[in-house]
């Protein structure tokens, strides 16, 4: 019985060959206690129901880079929409029917001369209301510090090698705006439908650490 050898569990692998994961039965942190206390008070006072809180978590989890990809594809096929997107990306996203709440979004355009890269050096600001939750690496100190000091080295590690003729513009989301990169439409995509184009748009291509897929 594995449970008879409790002290040694960490040395052994599970039947599936993976290390046992430690139970999360350590003491709660200050902020975990605060979150539970506030949440329970909101429920107790009748301001929110547990169902409403779960539904809000569901709504955030349902947002995905596919929403942003649809916006990018529309901008590739519709020059008037692209102009509206670059003027006010929040309004343009709402126009497509996305419920982005209070998100203040700026779209920055990649061209043959300019490549844009998004970072939040202070924390983890990200256009969650359009793209969903950020990737874990986006929140690491390594990415946050290196993206502003050596963006080209970071891009190379992501597989994006830019010639010296291209200017890199890094955008540090330090305050109230959030950013999405409008990647350049890949060559050889003439005649593709908007839905087919959207499938080429990756999450990383909207952060600037990647390029769209090729058809």
């Amino acid at each position, binding site marked *: 019985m594995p449970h008879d050898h409790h002290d040694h569990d960490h040395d052994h692998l599970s039947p599936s060959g993976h290390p046992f994961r430690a139970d999360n039965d350590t003491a709660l942190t200050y902020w975990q206690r605060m979150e539970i206390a506030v949440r329970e008070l909101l429920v107790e006072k009748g301001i929110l129901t547990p169902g409403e809180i779960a539904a809000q978590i569901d709504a955030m989890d349902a947002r995905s880079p596919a929403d942003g990809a649809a916006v990018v594809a529309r901008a590739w096929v519709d020059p008037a929409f692209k102009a509206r997107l670059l003027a006010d990306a929040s309004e343009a996203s709402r126009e497509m029917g996305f419920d982005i709440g209070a998100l203040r979004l700026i779209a920055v355009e990649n061209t043959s001369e300019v490549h844009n890269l998004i970072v939040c050096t202070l924390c983890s600001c990200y256009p969650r209301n359009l793209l969903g939750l950020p990737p874990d690496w986006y929140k690491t100190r390594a990415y946050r510090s290196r993206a*502003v000091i050596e*963006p*080209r080295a970071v891009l190379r590690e992501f597989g994006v090698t830019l010639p010296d003729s291209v200017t*890199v513009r*890094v955008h540090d989301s*330090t305050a*109230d*705006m959030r950013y999405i990169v409008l990647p350049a439409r890949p060559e050889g995509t003439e005649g593709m439908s908007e839905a087919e184009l959207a499938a080429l748009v990756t999450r990383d291509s909207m952060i600037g650490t990647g390029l769209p897929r090729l058809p």
Partner: protein
Amino acid sequence: MAERVRVRSMAPPGHVRAPFYLRGKEGEIERALGEFGNPEELAYHHDASRKPLYRVRFTMRELWGEAAERPEDTLDAEIYGHWLERL
């Protein structure tokens, strides 16, 4: 001509959103974003005053000197007006 500004070299206590690596650095206003509640007050649940917010563009040369990967590359950041002095 874009307006030239310098980020103030202040180090007030508390929550601020002007990164250390930009303090004292010179750049130009990329665009004005309008007025927003001052995060230095919002962070402490005070009634926040409205402060103008700007996107400021810096060259990598200005930030990192000749050690920059490519000095002509740029960095844009959002900086509140009370952190900027006009040049």
